[in-house]
């Protein structure tokens, strides 16, 4: 083992050295350009979705590499990799398009009562699980109760916590979820604790999948490793842990169009060099879909984009700074805007990320095509003159101390260091720069003394902009404990009754177009006007895809291939 450890240390040293070198390269890049005029576009443009081609025939095996998921049993499916498998195995009430639009899954239609606190889902009759069991309303109730019950150990069941009876079942006081009525096999009636006009979007989360009787409790390991679902693909054998997962087409699928592919093969790659392995696998012809290491993005784009084997998409996540909105020095809008305008996001995107991340000018990411407002954060554009003016107005004199905290070990060292350098150079601030492990970082965020800039990223659990607005900025999401610690996700302590009223109104608005407008207004107010949080970078994803062999490959909302549409050319 000694030998291996020495090797490991060597890898670490090499990695550290390259960080330092990149940091130096960054220095020359991060200087502010003269003036504040129009800035060149940064990063790699998105590719338009591959158009849907008709004429698919059954056949073909689609292969890709993933890292070992936490679970593929919906009760505990968490990360994108697990979702890719789960989503092929299970079809929920609703499905989501690559653009984040909800479409019918097992439910044909869904409607609330006038107050949006009771929802009725009409189900397609007679759709089947892979073992032949019928998917009825009781199957959904079963699935939700199975995940929510106290002994399940689910880390995601809280997504169902808006349903009446969730608290009782998850605390062990009940064994049934009283808010779910499945007495009519083709109709599921759900009563909520509070009005939520977007409740159906929550059911897109894997945890809301239906369950056959055969599933048993979550402790049934045979089912955990070979879930019997109702999706377009079914398990071929069980999950070979750390080796792979093979799915085959479910020919009795009637909840939607049948899939074309004969099989999907998920080969499990090492998390440490998974991206490199996916890439190597694409190059050696093993994989049909792959990520690539960041330094190779530019080179691969020029090789593969002309061949149509390149997908580039902004996805559902934003990297941002939690600002201390109630503690000096960022407790005024002017101060926050001054700091934000003094950061040259473009320079960092080019210098540090080499175009792999793009500057964010909004909190709600571009993945929400209907609500996305590019530039809603006007203070997210580098403007040194304005920044200096605002800083003076806000009393941010040179020499003012400001915290800049980040969590270590997740690749945030370089770009936060660049931000520090810019703030020191551009505004003369004294930056107290500190990186700690994520848990300590969270403790810092929760504490009443939290101030300055604190790195964090957020992605929506289900496709609603409300999942950015409410948890991060609503007063109700502060959840202060007796010591004044934040126990919700509103670490900035942004509290604006006007905003709270607006997001409540949005949540309680039935009409989708009108609701989208309200989300936009909420963002204009909280981000555009108040800069309650400081958007920094947009998540953008790049994939190499074997379009020479397969048609209809696109990236879905959770960054996986649209397996059920792909067919062999």
């Amino acid at each position, binding site marked *: 083992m*000694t030998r291996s450890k020495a090797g490991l240390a060597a890898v670490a040293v090499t990695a550290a050295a390259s960080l330092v070198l990149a940091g130096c390269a960054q220095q020359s890049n991060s200087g502010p350009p003269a003036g504040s005029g129009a800035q060149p576009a940064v990063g790699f443009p998105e590719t338009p979705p591959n158009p849907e081609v008709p004429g698919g025939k059954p056949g073909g095996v689609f292969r890709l590499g993933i890292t070992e998921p*936490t679970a593929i049993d919906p009760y505990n499916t968490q990360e994108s990799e697990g979702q890719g498998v789960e989503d092929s195995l299970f079809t929920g009430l609703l499905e989501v398009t690559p653009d984040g639009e909800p479409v019918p899954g097992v439910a044909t239609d869904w409607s609330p009562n006038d107050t949006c606190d009771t929802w009725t889902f009409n189900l397609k009759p007679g759709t089947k699980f892979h073992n032949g069991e019928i998917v009825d309303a009781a199957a959904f109730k079963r699935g939700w109760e199975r995940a929510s019950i106290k002994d399940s150990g689910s880390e995601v069941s*809280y997504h169902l916590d808006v349903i009446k009876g969730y608290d009782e079942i998850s605390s062990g006081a009940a064994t049934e979820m009283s808010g779910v009525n499945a007495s009519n096999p083709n109709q599921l009636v759900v009563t909520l604790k509070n009005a939520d006009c977007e409740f159906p979007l929550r059911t897109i989360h894997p945890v809301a999948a239906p369950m056959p009787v055969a599933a048993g409790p979550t402790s049934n390991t045979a089912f955990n490793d070979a879930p019997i679902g109702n999706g377009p693909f079914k398990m071929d054998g069980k999950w070979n842990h750390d080796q792979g997962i093979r799915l085959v087409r479910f020919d009795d699928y009637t909840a939607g169009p049948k899939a074309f592919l004969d099989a999907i093969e998920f080969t499990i790659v090492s998390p440490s060099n998974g991206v490199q392995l996916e890439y*190597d696998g694409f190059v050696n012809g093993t994989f049909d879909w792959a990520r690539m290491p960041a330094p190779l993005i530019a080179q691969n784009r020029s090789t593969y984009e002309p061949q149509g084997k390149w997908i580039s998409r902004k996805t559902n996540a934003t990297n941002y700074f939690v600002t201390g909105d109630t503690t000096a020095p960022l407790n005024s809008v002017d101060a926050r805007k001054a700091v934000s305008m003094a950061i040259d996001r473009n320079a960092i995107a080019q210098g540090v990320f080499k175009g792999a991340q793009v500057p964010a000018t909004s909190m709600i990411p571009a993945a929400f095509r209907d609500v996305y407002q590019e530039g809603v954060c006007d203070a997210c554009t580098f403007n040194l003159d304005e920044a200096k003016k605002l800083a003076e107005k806000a009393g941010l004199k040179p020499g003012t101390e400001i915290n800049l905290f980040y969590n270590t070990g997740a690749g945030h060292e370089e770009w936060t260091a660049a931000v520090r350098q810019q703030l020191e150079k551009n505004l003369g601030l004294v930056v107290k720069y500190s990186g700690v492990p994520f848990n300590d970082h969270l403790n810092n965020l929760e504490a009443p003394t939290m101030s300055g800039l604190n790195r964090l990223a957020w992605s929506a659990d289900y496709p609603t902009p409300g999942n950015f607005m409410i948890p991060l900025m609503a007063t109700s999401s502060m959840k202060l404990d007796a010591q004044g610690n934040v126990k919700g*996700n509103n670490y900035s302590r942004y509290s604006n009754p006007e905003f709270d009223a607006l997001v409540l109104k949005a949540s309680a608005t039935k009409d989708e177009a009108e609701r989208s407008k309200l989300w936009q207004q909420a963002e204009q107010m909280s981000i555009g006007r108040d800069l309650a949080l400081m958007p920094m970078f947009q998540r953008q994803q790049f994939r190499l895809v074997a379009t020479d062999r397969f048609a209809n490959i696109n990236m879905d909302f959770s960054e996986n291939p649209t397996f059920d549409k792909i067919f062999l050319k």
Partner: protein
Amino acid sequence: MGKFILRRVGQAVIVVLAAILLVYVATYALGDPFASTGDRQVPPEIAAQNRAIFGLDQPLPIQYINYIGNLVTGDLGLDFDQRRPVIDMLGAVVPNTARLALVAILIDVAIGVIAGIIAAVKRYSFADVLVTVVSTVAIGVPTFVIGLGLLAFLSGVGPFPVVPRSFTDQVPWYQEVLLPAFALAIIDAAFVARLMRGSMLEVLRADYIRTARAKGVSERRVIGVHALRNSIIPVVTYVGVSLGTLLGGAIITEAIFQYDGVGYLLFRAIGSNNAPVISAVIVFGVIAYTVLSLIVDILYAFLDPRIRLN
């Protein structure tokens, strides 16, 4: 002999207990495995419940004693991530690592011993200089460079399978094991060659070699039997210890070649703060190492009757 083995087993138990204690303290210092990390946001009450399930709500000494108690009964617990029995996870990878270790040792002994003998017998010849230079270079190059080099130039060529490959493309184990075994064997072979050369040179100067030659024993027999048997003792020590190390898992090499062995398991477990797996792998590594050194000690006696075990 019985007393000797008993004493060594007693020592081994102490070593294992101490190793577990160290691992426990180290993984405890890594922090709470059920807390929110990055994208994963775990509600505090669920995290608390999970801690209770795994007994992490108890003080460290109690946890340690419970673990030892379970270990004695062969219960290695469940892993934190997927709640799989750790004994199964370990059981699945140990045969792979054992194969890798044995093939690597065979390769390094074959190359190392032959190269060492040639270098010693033809001292200062071109072959000797070549062995010295090549072994110096091989010792100096880190394992991961050799691994990545072999992977880049040889995988997919001839009998060596491509990496990565789809898990459904089954490759016979002897093909899969070749490249990682070479990567591991190269440095060891270099060490063995140097040990062999040095020790052989020493033995060749001994009186009994001259006697053997004087008696008219063939040169082949002098080198192959008389000298070899006496000069191979340091090599046996080194190879035995090296085998013990390899059985504990070759983290870097197994990760580079996606080889599903003990080292790769440990590597992933460390990455996900999966203490039950980390402890199990290290306990296994310590036991493998201790047992192998015991066997080496016993082998001494057979190779050299002059060595007494007490």
